[in-house]
């Protein structure tokens, strides 16, 4: 097992975004130089953080990256990750786990927008809140997350699981507007409240265990399961998805 600790150095302009898609476990085996972009300037990772390696391995499955300090402005950590683990001890910036295929990312703070965008496999656990577009697709993309799982212990922003096509997204807090909009498949579970969930869905299953504060009017009530109301829809979109809710403000 190799543990690589990346400790962020103080920065002269801490608001400048850093793009760091090369921070994935396989890039820390051997002596490969890892590069990042800070604004429009390319730097070595050594310019922005202190790197400490404990242990030595040959395969990325046994690499664990620990991100320490302020990583809230660092984007694209874990992009295309295919093995190993990343633990973020605080907050993480946008696009963490983009297109991730395998491995595990654990975020002990909050995650910014587009967490696990178009993820294919693997596991993301966020102990805090996640921003907008958690588990969604890129602009104009017809399929979002296609596999793997995202679990958010806190709340998520708007458009969570947009275009969800496969895999699962579990939100233990509340979801903003339009969670599960355009769902094509997969499972979305929201333990808290939601507004206009699963709008325009085609397939898949969305469960809201809290209150649905507003509901899209074009879901057809088909029955009850385990004390929850089951709808089919979105009828406006000729959809055949399942929306299961505990309570809704809708009057039939």
């Amino acid at each position: 097992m190799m543990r690589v600790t990346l400790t962020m150095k103080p920065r002269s302009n801490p608001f400048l975004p850093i793009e760091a898609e090369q921070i994935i476990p396989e890039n820390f085996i051997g002596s490969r130089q890892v590069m990042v972009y800070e604004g429009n300037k390319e730097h070595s990772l050594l310019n922005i953080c202190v790197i400490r390696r404990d242990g030595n391995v040959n395969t990325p499955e046994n690499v664990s990256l620990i991100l320490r300090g302020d990583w809230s402005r660092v984007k694209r950590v874990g992009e295309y990750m295919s093995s190993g683990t990343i633990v973020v001890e605080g907050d993480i910036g946008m696009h963490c786990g983009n297109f991730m295929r395998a491995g595990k990312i654990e975020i002990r703070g909050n995650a910014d927008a587009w967490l696990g965008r178009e993820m294919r496999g693997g596991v993301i656990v966020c102990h805090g809140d996640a921003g907008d577009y958690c588990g969604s697709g890129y602009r104009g993309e017809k399929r979002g997350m296609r596999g793997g799982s995202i679990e958010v212990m806190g709340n998520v922003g708007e458009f969570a699981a947009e275009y969800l096509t496969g895999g699962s997204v579990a939100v233990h807090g509340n979801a903003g507007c339009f969670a599960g909009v355009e769902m094509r498949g997969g499972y979305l579970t929201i333990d808290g409240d939601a507004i206009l969930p699963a709008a325009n869905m085609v397939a898949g299953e969305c469960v809201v265990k809290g209150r649905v504060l507003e509901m899209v009017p074009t879901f057809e009530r088909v029955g009850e399961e385990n004390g929850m109301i089951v709808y089919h829809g979105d009828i406006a979109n000729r959809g055949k998805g399942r929306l299961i809710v505990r309570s809704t403000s809708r009057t039939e």
Partner: protein
Amino acid sequence: MTEIPEAFSFSHTKQPSGGVHDGVVTDVLCPFCGCLCDDIKVTVTAGTITGVENACTLGAQKFLADTGRLPKPIRRDEDGWHEISYDEAIEYCVEILKNANRPLLYGWSSSLTEAQAIGVHIAELIGGVIDSTSTVCHGPSILAIQEVGHPGCTLGQVKNRADVIVYWGANPTDAHPRHMSRYSTYVDAYFMHNSFRDRKIIVVDVRRTATADIADEFLQITPGGDYALASALRAIVRGRDDVVPAEVSGISKVQMMQVAEMLKNAKFGAVFFGLGVAMTRGKYKNVRNAIELVDELNRFTKCTITAMRGHWNVYGSNEVFTWISGYPYGIDYSRGIAYYNPGETTSADLLARREVDAAVIVGSDVGAHFPRACCEHLASIPTVLIDPYPSATTHLSTVQIPTAVNGIDAEPGTAYRMDGIPLQTRQVLPCTTHFTDYEIFSRIYARLKEEKGA
């Protein structure tokens, strides 16, 4: 590829190249809104505009109240504002842009497409972000179009064929005053016998506007209810009214059924939507739902949908940015290639997150329209405003460079109407005092190329 001229010399007085000192200029393009009315007649007496015919109140004021222009570039230091030369102002602009880590070029909707093209080249050269006023306007409409396409047409088609017109979240009586008389409600149609009386007008809005007063059907929806209403109408149009509740977004099912029937029975329907749809809760999903309603209607009749673009050449900025970079607004060149992600690479987001370290604002008033956090950040970084008039953004800037006004005293160029039709502007007045934004950006680009060794 846009041809970019050699650097202009700014050391001499600008030579007059068009316009009239006395006389009447016809077929002038109005420089105000996205309608780009091209039938304006302007009377000039002793180098001053003294009369405007055919324009609406807003357009006429643009010509007649053309006062208070900044005479020369100005720079602020600890003693206040001081006049500087064009060369000094441009050197300052080059200086802040050439080494910036996250420069932003924002605005562009009052510029000609020729100047917009140079802006994209500058953004690419300096690794910056270029964004237009779409970001606070119909940007969500473009996102929706990227998802589901655009069943659109020119305004000429609407004028000559449409017998059912829908204004959704738009109030053209106040915002686009000649839209209804030139393209829809009141205009004679080539393919209709009695167009004024035969047309039906449907208005959807959260309040009773002046446009709603002339509507045959007015749907006063609850704020934020656009998405639900569009979903319900889609279900009704496709014959699944059984799932629709008795009331949606404050509209009764009976009225929704009537409206759906009017739309299905139209010979040619035209939906125009404004920021009441694109900039309320749901944003691009509202627009997408409206587009999909129009798609559904096209199973029964001909129906089209068009955004009521507000800012003059904002459509042109989307066209120009797209044909050069592949993306319509919010384009980030920080890594040398174009990247686009509204919400991440758009001006309000960049400024609110305090990412930007140098900014050039072009013909746009950020100080009046952006959130406070954005304005505070803009005031804390080197900011150049390129605009003919002092505005709220002047107070956030370190340098302001005045330009000739496109459509009044700037040399002719191209602007796009809200339906994507490119039109040629006319020069009404000769200009000897101000350079155009095209000339200024050509100079900035040439100097940046020298500095970068490009």
